């Protein structure tokens, strides 16, 4: 009962937070700086993409960062979730007897589709996890890579979802009532879903890590044999972590599908999985804060590069101008150099396993805790 109340309270708080953020964005929409809109559809799109990356990175952190199992197949789970959710919404909403087109009529369809996508991804995670987790280290990496590629190649061979050309015409998210006025549609309506889901992902992963289940995962990461000797059922916990992580990735895939309205199998290849890994490696293995930071910085990288390229001016030497002009094409080169550089200089990532915490920031909340014997003596 207590747990249920807590979950409800968190969910309520999240919805309130999302509403506040969106209201701020909505009010900013009407203002302009120097003749250009502060909030553009393009900018919102990038924010949405960052949000999806955050949830992918945080969910992958559960396997790679906390359990210490190197998975290279996250894009595959994302694809499963995305395709299943998209198939359900498309066939229901544009099928023979579509439901009432109002928000109340369509909302359950979306929620059901996203959950079904997450469930399908979880099942895929279970199927991949049970055999693979007998393997360790680089062998596990290579098997998850193999599974990820198989998922993609199988999707390419399913004609019902468009095959290699891609699945198009997926319905986008409906408008939320409190935002529907004032020309908020398209990308903007996805934002609330994505915000809400980021919060859910972070809460889920954070609570897992702080629970005894999470402690077991960290024990497995630090020394699997010792963990087993302490009585931890390592295979069970590894598979469970894998499944939860896959489910979250599947949910994120569903959000991605409805954000763009189309899915192309080739975007879920192994390079995509590596991109998510770069995010957590960059931010710090074993840190939710690091995953969020890595996702924001690296998803925004093309935009940062475009801004840098915009710095070209006549007062600069021509070779600088020329190299600045090349920057936007260098995204993947910068990604990979960054990855190598971090491994050379700081293999644990920028934040290591540091975790941002509000209570730590606002002074130690040790006031309510009983004093230890040491403190009493002093």
């Amino acid at each position, binding site marked *: 009962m207590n747990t249920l109340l807590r979950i409800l309270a968190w969910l309520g708080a999240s919805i309130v937070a999302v509403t506040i953020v969106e209201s701020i964005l909505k009010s900013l929409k009407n203002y302009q700086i120097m003749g250009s809109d502060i909030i553009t559809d393009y900018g919102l799109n990038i924010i949405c993409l960052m949000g999806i990356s955050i949830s992918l990175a945080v969910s992958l952190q559960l396997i790679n960062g906390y359990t210490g199992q190197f998975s290279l197949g996250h894009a595959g789970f994302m694809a499963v979730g995305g395709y299943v959710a998209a198939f359900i919404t498309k066939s229901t909403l544009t099928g023979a007897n579509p439901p009432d087109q109002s928000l109340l009529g369509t909302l359950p369809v979306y929620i059901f589709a996203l959950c079904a996508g997450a469930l399908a991804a979880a099942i895929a995670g279970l199927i991949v996890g049970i*055999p693979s987790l007998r393997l360790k280290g680089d062998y596990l990496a290579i098997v998850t890579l193999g*599974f990820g590629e198989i998922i993609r190649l199988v999707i390419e061979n399913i004609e019902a979802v468009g095959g290699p050309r891609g699945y198009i015409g997926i319905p986008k998210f409906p408008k939320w009532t409190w935002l529907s006025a004032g020309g908020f549609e398209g990308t903007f309506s996805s934002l609330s879903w994505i915000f809400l889901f980021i919060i859910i992902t972070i809460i889920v992963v954070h609570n897992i890590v702080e629970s005894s289940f999470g402690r077991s995962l960290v024990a497995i990461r630090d020394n699997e044999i010792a963990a087993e000797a302490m009585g931890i059922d390592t295979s069970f916990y590894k598979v469970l972590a894998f499944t939860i992580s896959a489910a979250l990735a599947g949910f994120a895939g569903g959000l991605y599908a409805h954000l763009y309205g189309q899915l192309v199998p080739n975007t879920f290849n192994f390079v995509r999985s590596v991109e998510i890994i770069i995010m957590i490696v960059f931010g710090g293995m074993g840190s939710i804060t690091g995953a969020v930071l890595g996702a924001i910085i690296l998803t925004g990288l093309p935009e940062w590069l475009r801004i840098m390229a915009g710095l070209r001016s006549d007062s600069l030497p021509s070779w600088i101008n020329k190299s600045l002009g090349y920057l936007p094409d260098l995204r993947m080169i910068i990604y990979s150099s960054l*990855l190598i550089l971090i*491994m050379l200089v700081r293999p644990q990532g920028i934040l290591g396993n540091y975790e941002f915490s509000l209570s730590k920031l606002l002074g130690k909340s040790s006031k309510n805790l009983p004093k230890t014997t040491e403190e009493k003596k002093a």
Partner: protein
Amino acid sequence: MELFLQQLINGIVQGSIYALIALGYTMVYGVLRLINFAHGDVFMLGAFIGFYTANLLGISQPSVGALILVMTVSMAGSAAVGLVIERFAYRPVRKFSRLTSLITAIGVSLLLEYAAQFVFGATPKSFPTIFETQNISLFGNVTISNDSILIIIVSIFLMVMLNLIVFKTKLGKAMRAVSFNLDVAKLMGINTDFIIAFTFALGSALAAAAGILYSVHFTKIDPLMGLLIGLKAFVAAVLGGIGNITGAVLGGLLLGIAEIMVSGYISSSYKDVFAFLILILVLIVKPAGLLGSAAQEKV
């Protein structure tokens, strides 16, 4: 029957290329316990070095001499690339965990791919004709092109050379010692850094040879061509038993034949799925591969 024989020949040709690349994977894994993800991209670089060498030299007449020249330059160039990668990316992270090395390898692989796309351009290039190809009919409708024969002959030659180096020379003995136990090899006075670098150079040269043979046979090259072939050659190495040189050749040939058979008799769109399925099955059922020996984990 004719179809089957034709497929078998095609499979052996495809398999020989896989085998040459798989040798590099297996040797590096043997000495470092590292999956060198960048190996497939060294294969790609080998093809591109060959492309530019042939164009710069202005080779207009296809001849065996031209082929040998281009292949030698490309093998030397790729060996140098292998040495640079080893020295500046893998050696500094060797003291960290194996996963750090793996992530570095993935980074190097992506860097080579996208740097190649940036420098050479993403569109496929057609490889210059440095070897006149013609079809020779064996019997009935079964044909074999002379470049296929070339691929098989060169592969066998290089594999024999490699075997001689690894099993008959002092350097080879040191390589085997390093792969057996790096620390003990060090204690015996073997310069392990040099041996590891040498292994990289050797593997990269073989990959470059495979790159040239591939380009002569398939004529189209592009910066991402090493990605899938590299992964499949890795599958071949695992199939044969990673760390085992004979195993890499066997695995390469088996994978090549199996893949051509699947695309010939079932569907060509499933041949990649099939390669990955083999990988997963081998790793789950017999992780040591066909010829490898399972290592006991020490606590």
